[in-house]
């Protein structure tokens, strides 16, 4: 089994899907000849041909729109958007059409498509190149939103997303693309969607994160363990539909919860998790639910990036505050 990076795992899953299923098509800006800005599609056009791995002109709304048309005809489009900040023109197509096709036709048409995009900061570029727009999609009925946190998870979740019968927005943490290597078996096994993954068991507090924040949660848990605090770490993985049961189970055990979200604080996915904890888990809580998140501002240039992004130290400090309650 080879040790590979997250971006290589994405490439591996795409290759596997293209090889296994004739209906799978990959397209987007510079994905073919150039292999993608982050090289996620490297070599796919050479291997699978221009018919199935296509370069499009610069037209994000159209990329999403043709994916819907292809999906409605039974094909399995997997489209790439180069950076999360260029995904906004696709919102019209995804919100107004992709997410509604099944509902609008009472199940006669469906939309098994995937839009992949890098997500989040940590790569020293401001604004559009570092944003985390997942909440926009998670708010939309009919869309699935999936965020992997490691190479193995990226491989399994992407295969699952491609095989899923509904539209999936698949957001890949750009700063993890080459940050770590992990053994990934190219076994064609999908990882289940719509479930959280408990990555570390603990007794005193539950740390809930997704994407690049999972690593920060794990690092915080490690630091807290050294101080005798036992933290459970949950990788949400599928942000919508949300597996709140797993989070409630964990918090029933620990009594405390810190939700870690890289996106700006207000009206994020973390707010949904916190609301559900308040609705269904209040009596198990020993302390208030807290969110450690980005700030309600535009992603700054590299100099202030570290101040914007939640990190292990901020998470651990928040946990220590919660331990004061009980």
């Amino acid at each position, binding site marked *: 089994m080879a040790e590979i990076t997250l971006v290589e795992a994405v490439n591996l899953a795409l290759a596997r899907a293209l090889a296994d299923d004739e209906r799978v098509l990959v397209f987007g*800006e*510079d994905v073919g*000849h*150039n*292999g993608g*800005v982050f090289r996620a599609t490297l070599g796919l056009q050479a291997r699978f041909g221009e018919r199935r791995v296509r*370069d499009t*002109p*610069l*037209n*994000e*709304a*159209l990329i999403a729109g043709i994916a819907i048309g292809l999906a409605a005809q039974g094909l399995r489009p997997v489209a790439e958007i180069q950076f999360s*900040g*260029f995904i906004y*023109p696709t919102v019209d197509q995804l919100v107004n059409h992709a997410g509604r096709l099944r509902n609008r036709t009472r199940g006669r048409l469906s939309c098994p498509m995937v839009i992949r995009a890098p997500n989040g900061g940590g*790569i*020293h*570029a*401001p*604004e*559009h*190149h570092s944003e985390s727009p997942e909440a926009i999609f998670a708010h939309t009925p009919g869309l699935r939103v999936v965020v992997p946190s490691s190479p193995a998870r990226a491989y399994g979740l992407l295969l699952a997303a491609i095989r899923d019968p509904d539209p999936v927005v698949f957001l890949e943490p750009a700063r993890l693309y080459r940050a770590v290597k992990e053994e990934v078996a190219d076994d064609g096994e999908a990882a289940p969607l719509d479930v959280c993954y408990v990555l570390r068991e603990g007794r005193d507090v539950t740390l809930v994160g997704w994407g690049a924040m999972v690593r920060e949660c794990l690092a915080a848990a490690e630091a807290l363990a050294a101080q005798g605090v036992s933290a459970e770490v949950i990788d949400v993985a599928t942000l919508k539909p949300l597996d709140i049961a797993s989070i409630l189970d964990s918090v029933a055990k620990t009594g405390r919860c810190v939700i870690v979200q890289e996106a700006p604080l207000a009206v994020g996915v973390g707010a949904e998790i916190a609301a559900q904890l308040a609705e269904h888990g209040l009596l198990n809580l020993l302390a208030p639910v807290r969110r450690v998140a980005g*700030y*309600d*501002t*535009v992603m*700054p*240039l*590299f*100099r*202030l990036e570290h*101040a*914007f992004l939640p990190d292990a130290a901020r998470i651990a400090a928040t946990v220590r505050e919660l331990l004061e309650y009980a």
Partner: protein
Amino acid sequence: MNDVAHDEHRRQLLREMLRIRRFEEKSAELYTQEKIRGFMHLYVGEEAVAVGTLQALDADDAVVSTYREHGHALVRGIPARAVMAEMYGRQEGCSRGRGGSMHIFDAATRFCGGNAIVGGGLPLAVGLALADKLQGRARVSACLFGDGAVAEGEFHESLNLAALWKLPVLFLCENNFYAMGTALARAQSQPDLHLKAASYALGAEVVDGMDVLAVEAATRRAAQAVRGGGGPYFLELRTYRFSAHSMFDAQLYRDKAEVEDWRRRDPIVLFERQLRAAGVLDDATLARMEAEIAAEIAAAVAFAEAGSWEPVEDLTRFVYSEGPAP
């Protein structure tokens, strides 16, 4: 213009092109030293377009630009030190260190932004022009964008409305034949972009973008027509970028031989030769020019080096109004 003034003007055009070239060379060096970070796009090879077009505008015209805009900003008259400080992310930069290389703004020169969204500037330019028309001002809103932008919906919406409402927009298409790794012919059904533009019923021409005098002459004519109320005008300026798309680009999409061919049409080398042949440039004059430019750039770098960082407390400022301006 008399002969003396004409000669001086031509030397000035050369000087401005050299200024951009040397500024870009310095920027590349600073990028490798990690003084400038994130994404950066150089203008080397395209200098005749910025100089020819923007010198032909009036001081109160507006300029809407792209992410490849250092040269545009310099020619427009934003001090080199304010541009350099911005690229460093210093508070003394023209966008107070928040925009970086891709978002250079300057209210004083009506430089309405670098823009990291391909095609994102066109609607803005149409809006600026509509405001001028409604308020009875004979100003031009000049909008620079690449060949890649022509595939985006915003391009088509903007040209249509500007032509329909006879708005004073000067559309300046910097056709360097590539959008990142995608060659023009692989992205456009009609690669003669001025023909595509003309179908919106506005004046449209193609210009040799490696010939600064041709660019200047065409822009003067077009700007005059726009200013006179004749509606929008479109110039396709054919040029070539000698540098990579950005600082991360292996340039797998084009032959070295093609780059070499275009380098033989280097707008600076050609114009310098022309001026020497006409007897309006000698070694001493050129050496003086280079020395002045070197001193200006050294001063800009020193200014950026000496600049200050935005305090962390200001991270969330300027998201909303902070009350009446002091």
